[in-house]
């Protein structure tokens, strides 16, 4: 009848700390290869600490779960890409691109992560939630397991998937504490709206969605932006602001509370008709990485340890594209492959044997993307880009379209727009060209 106490093994091939997309992917791939894997997370339920409410790119995820697009809890496939520049006086420029094929989708990240973790469990991963890992155990300069309260568990290798808050790596002295220059603050609200209302308001079908980025006055000129994403029966809206600039703005008294920026977005007369009858059913905030390459630890591999996902700085934010979930999953997969290779060698998970993971990351599309878009980082921290430069096109269109008697030529409108920001057309062109090159 009821099983009584017996002893059970407490040594694993791999321990994965953190059950987000990176941790779940590495646990899944390793378990599938037949390794004994323990996945540990502090949340009450897998995924419940996730906050990201944006779009997720399918490609890298499919390399881990080929049936993800059919089986996972996907809400809507992004059909419309919108970008808006917002001015102070209700003037807004919006462009829309109607996509030709399905490359990204919206999903509740907690739901999606639960699905990923359940796949890992199906392959044999032992998943333990509600447990905080206090430190990584080391012996002779090698990571040999984890400690949680009074309990220690050993493994040949530990995969650190602890996310942007790298408390374990900090404790080991492998990374320094968070620096505002590298980070951004994301604040999100989830609005409950009926499905057919979303479809009508955004002009999409049941399984089609909208990814909408906003810049300009929505962050009161603080480098960053706003976002709107549609889900099955909810809309997630929010803002992301560059931490260092946000702190400066707060100190200068330009913003009071950061959540007011999201409230301004929800109540904004241009947008609030899209969610007239909505209820705010959830709100939250999370740190995110603004500059992946500088956030990245010096090395991604130490004896007995690999670093994946956010903890490894693998997030790309170009201003018009945000990639984190797919990078996390892909880095988890690469780490698992490296572990398989290392553990097949006689010496096991030494730094030399695990090094292959770092090489794979540096050769991967992720690293390429981060390097390629590095220049856009500078732009994303540049207040001028978010104030002056975004006001000029608004002024241009207002000159062109808001007419009393005379219609200016497009050139005249442009000249006036530049003059209003103390800039000549030519110097502006140079400046813009410099900026565009960075994008």
């Amino acid at each position, binding site marked *: 009848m009821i099983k009584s106490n*017996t002893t059970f093994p407490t040594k694993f091939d791999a321990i994965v700390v953190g059950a987000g997309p990176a941790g779940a992917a590495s646990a899944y791939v390793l378990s599938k290869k037949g390794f004994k894997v323990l996945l540990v997370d502090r949340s009450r339920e897998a995924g419940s600490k996730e906050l990201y409410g944006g779009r997720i790119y399918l490609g890298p995820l499919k390399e881990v779960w080929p049936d993800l697009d059919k089986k996972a809890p996907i809400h809507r496939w992004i059909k419309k890409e919108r970008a808006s520049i917002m001015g102070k006086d209700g003037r807004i420029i919006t462009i829309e691109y109607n996509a030709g094929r399905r490359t990204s989708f919206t999903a509740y990240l907690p739901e999606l992560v639960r699905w990923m973790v359940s796949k890992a469990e199906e392959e044999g991963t032992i998943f333990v939630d509600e447990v905080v890992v206090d430190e990584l155990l080391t012996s002779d300069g090698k990571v040999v397991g984890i400690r949680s*309260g009074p309990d220690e568990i050993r493994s040949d290798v530990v995969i650190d998937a602890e996310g942007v808050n790298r408390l374990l790596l900090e404790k080991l002295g492998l990374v320094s504490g968070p620096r505002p220059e590298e980070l951004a603050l994301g604040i999100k609200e989830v609005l409950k709206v009926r499905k057919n209302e979303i479809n009508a308001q955004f002009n999409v079908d049941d399984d089609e969605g909208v990814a909408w980025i906003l810049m300009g006055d929505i962050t009161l000129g603080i480098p960053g932006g706003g976002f709107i994403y549609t889900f099955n029966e909810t809309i997630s809206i929010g803002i992301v602001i560059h931490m260092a600039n946000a702190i400066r703005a707060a100190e200068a008294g330009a913003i009071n509370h950061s959540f007011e920026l999201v409230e301004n977005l929800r109540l904004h007369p241009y947008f609030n008709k899209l969610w007239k009858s909505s209820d705010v059913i959830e709100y939250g905030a999370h740190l995110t990485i603004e500059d992946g390459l500088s956030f990245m630890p010096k090395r991604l591999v130490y004896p007995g340890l690999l670093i994946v996902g956010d903890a490894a700085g693998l997030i790309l934010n170009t201003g018009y594209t945000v990639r984190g979930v797919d990078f996390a999953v892909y880095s988890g997969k690469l780490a698992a492959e490296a572990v398989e290779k290392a553990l097949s060698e006689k010496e096991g998970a030494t730094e030399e044997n695990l090094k292959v993971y770092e090489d794979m990351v540096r050769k991967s599309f992720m690293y390429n993307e981060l390097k390629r878009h590095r220049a856009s980082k500078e732009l994303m921290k540049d207040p001028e880009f978010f104030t002056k430069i975004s006001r000029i096109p608004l002024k241009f269109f207002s000159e062109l379209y808001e007419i009393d008697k005379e219609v200016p030529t497009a050139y005249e409108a442009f000249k006036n727009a530049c003059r209003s920001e103390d800039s000549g057309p030519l110097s502006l062109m140079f400046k813009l060209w410099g900026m565009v090159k960075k994008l």
Partner: protein
Amino acid sequence: MVRVVVGIKWVPNTQAVRFDPKTGTLMREGVPSIINPPDLSAVEFALKIKERYGGEAIAITMAPPSAVKGLEHVLGMGVDRAVLISDRAFAGADTLATSYVLAEAIKKISRDVGKVDLAVFGQETIDSSTAHIPAQTASWLRWPYVYYVTDLEIKDDKVVVSRVLEDRVEKYELELPSVISVFMESIEARDVRLLHKLRAKIEKPIVVWSNKELKLDPRCIGLKGSPTMVSKITWTLEVPRKKIVYKPKDPEDAARWLISMLLKDEKTSKIFKWVVGG
């Protein structure tokens, strides 16, 4: 050596349940269930007894299969094993039918595993607050019962329990086996421990009993065994928020503004005047 059975209830998180003012019903859809919080105190209490006298702690719950999540939590706290009583036949039970099933399950544990010395329950549940279950279970078992317990001491086959009332602490000596319910918030539940939770996941020390195992008279369980009738539910309508934001200069300014607003409103001004005495 003491064998303690601790009862837990898997309840909707009432803080997340919303109310439909049109139909007068609870909207439970999508609301996650949790362990009834007072029951976590009962689990802590049971674990303390186990640590003090040796023996084992067994959790029982009558719930749908999703309650495995809750049982894993208490196993993670250090409970040794768990029984999930789960069967469509038990659905729709009131406290009478529920306590009957729980009492029979405790008898079955006594038969199959070994004599149960104590059954521990939480004071009440957050989703109905009747506090019937421990008392009724004790009645079915014909065991003595004391509620609002904060402490106990076992001596041979007797137990001395302390119970708190508002103004005093009383001590009772009971014969074992007996039933107690633990005074809410008198004891803080411990966190889940890695090794305990790991054992729960690897060994899965949870057994599921349907009515095939318990073999109870179908007339005494579930909806059929439940004489309770809910004749009427009333509720207070939600007061719509005024959504006024005032940015005060300092606390005094805030207080002045708040009082002036309270006095403007007919209802609140009455209450306010009554509170401050005119």
